[in-house]
């Protein structure tokens, strides 16, 4: 049984201009120990999907519905506010892009680490302190014991994000969601954090949802990817299948518009023309149709249907993009 099951997740926000359909019927499974990438551009619904799972969407104006959303057999949508607070931190945890805004600037690092431990694990101050030192050492912060009394502003961006990961993993959650967790960091620091997440999750069997707009980060870290556009998953598959046989016009568009450091990319980039989709009044046909370079006649007539390929790879696209044969 998968650790996390999401079926037909819809998250809408009531605004003055109408209802924004931020997430539009998303379904996926996350296996135990799996690292799943969620890729897409601003407004694609990847962060709102994560917040919906964490039950962090404020209602009102938000409204989250799903046919099913279970973590480890528990229906997340039926948990009371008190129950969900027990769940967050202990069973599922989240790391955000900007660690400075997630950490309390007037509390020491040690206090913020022990707070979570004492809240969820009912251990005394001394035991929590010992555990906090272990956690800081685990995420590679040198002279951990001395650092407990430091404040967030005394840490660099990379170190703050390590602290956030230490807090997130402190109660051994089954699910870790990282939302653009390395986007604000320099590449050499990003490489350190990715390495850390890989090692820790493998050691502990934690399942991860890794949200990023950066295809490269996802390619190097994840087992599987969901590509999102306009609140829908438009393509999903194991990492190699998806990168070698992109089968949705949007996935292909993303790849063609991204320059590559190894010089293997196109000489001239092919941008995705046009504007991001309107989430208030969504197109009943393919949401990507107005910007698609590979659309076929059928795309203007009927909505896309899901087409399945090998190894659990699928795409909701009517254009026949994936060439036959195994990945190279």
């Amino acid at each position, binding site marked *: 049984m998968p650790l996390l099951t999401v079926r037909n997740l819809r998250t809408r926000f009531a605004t003055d201009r109408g209802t924004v359909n931020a997430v539009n019927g998303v379904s996926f499974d996350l296996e135990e120990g799996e690292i799943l990438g969620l890729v897409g*551009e*601003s407004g694609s619904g990847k962060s709102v999907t994560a917040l919906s799972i964490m039950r962090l969407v404020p209602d009102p104006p938000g409204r989250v519905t799903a046919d099913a959303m279970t973590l480890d057999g528990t229906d997340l949508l039926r948990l009371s506010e008190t129950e969900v607070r027990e769940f967050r931190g202990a069973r599922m945890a989240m790391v955000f892009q900007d660690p400075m805004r997630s950490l309390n600037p007037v509390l020491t690092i040690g206090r913020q680490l022990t707070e979570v431990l004492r809240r969820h694990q009912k251990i005394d101050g001394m035991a929590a302190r010992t555990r906090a030192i272990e956690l800081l050492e685990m995420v590679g912060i040198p002279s951990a014991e001395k650092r407990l009394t430091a404040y967030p502003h005394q840490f*660099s*961006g*990379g*170190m703050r994000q390590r602290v956030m990961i230490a807090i997130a993993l402190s109660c051994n959650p089954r699910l870790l969601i990282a939302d653009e967790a390395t986007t604000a960091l*320099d*590449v*050499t*620091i*990003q*490489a*350190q954090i*990715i*390495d850390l997440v890989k090692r820790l999750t493998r050691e502990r069997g934690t399942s991860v949802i890794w949200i990023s*707009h*950066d*295809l*490269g*980060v*996802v*390619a*190097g870290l994840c087992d599987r990817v969901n590509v999102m556009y306009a609140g829908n998953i438009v393509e999903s598959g194991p*990492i*190699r299948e998806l*990168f*070698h046989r992109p089968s949705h016009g949007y996935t292909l*568009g*993303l*790849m*063609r*518009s*991204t*320059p*590559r*450091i*190894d*010089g*293997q*990319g196109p000489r*001239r*980039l*092919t*941008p*995705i*023309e046009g*504007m*991001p989709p309107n989430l208030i009044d969504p197109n009943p046909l393919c949401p990507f149709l107005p*910007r698609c370079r590979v659309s076929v006649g059928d795309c203007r007539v009927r909505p896309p249907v899901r087409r399945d390929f090998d190894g659990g790879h699928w795409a909701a696209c009517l254009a026949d993009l994936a060439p036959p044969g195994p990945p190279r």
Partner: protein
Amino acid sequence: MSALLEVDDLAVHFGAPGARDKVKAVDGVTFSVERGRTLGLVGESGCGKSTTGYALLRLIEPTSGQVVFNGVDLRALDTRGLRRMRRKLQIIFQDAHASLNPRMPIGDLVGEALDIHDLYPGAARAGRIRELMDMVGLASHLVERYPHELSGGQAQRVAICRALAVEPELIVCDEPVSALDVSIQAQIINLLQDLQERLGLTYIFISHDLSVVRHMSDRVAVMYLGRIVEMAGKDEIYASPAHPYTKALMSAVPIADPDADAQRQRVILVGDLPNPADPPSGCRFRTRCPIAIARCAEIDPIQQPLGPQHWAKCIRLAEGT
């Protein structure tokens, strides 16, 4: 081909006069750019790449060094001379929205650039504005719109349009696509390339994104803590990086291809950037360098030539290691 811009031993130090702990944001940077070419400046936060860009235009006054543009020493110009010279040297920034006056419609924002330098006065002005907007792919109905009505990509086009209005020869591009989604990023990259080809522009392209820099540049300079540590043609520096920092930086950049990514040798650096007010002695990279030896703390490395257009500053290279 002659160099359009020559920068010699440029330094920008921040801090009160006479203070001991000056932040040496830029410390002895030397390079030149040929007309019609693009020099990429890459490095991580705090390496001094943006400060270098600003100092070239004297938006930040250099502490010492020379900046010679088309044979003119920019540091010797008075205010009026500098203003006249700025027609030839323009800059675009990462956050285009922040660089546009929110109370001015797009047409006026572009027109303002013309007015400052008395270009296309009177009846010719409106036509020139339309022409410039067309050049950067902005629809003419946007003339009366305000910046808040524009998307990030459109705002960056307006910023480029303003820079182009004065017919510059060189544009400093400071992270011009870093805040944009990849699909929009590609539109702006293509636009900058087209404009360069059409108008013979010279670019200093500053970015932390090594993939974008490779795509845009002819030559690349890698900066670390205020200094250029390696410089080469773009293919050479990416194919055979010599400085240990360049190697680590290159290997840290993810590739959107799981197989290519898995085959690479990763060099993961330990630790963070040292305090720029108190940089390490000798080689500034030595505190994070995987191949540093005791002598690296004593010797300030000089340029080691590695090819006709390729050099790096590392004493370990001279040993033939």
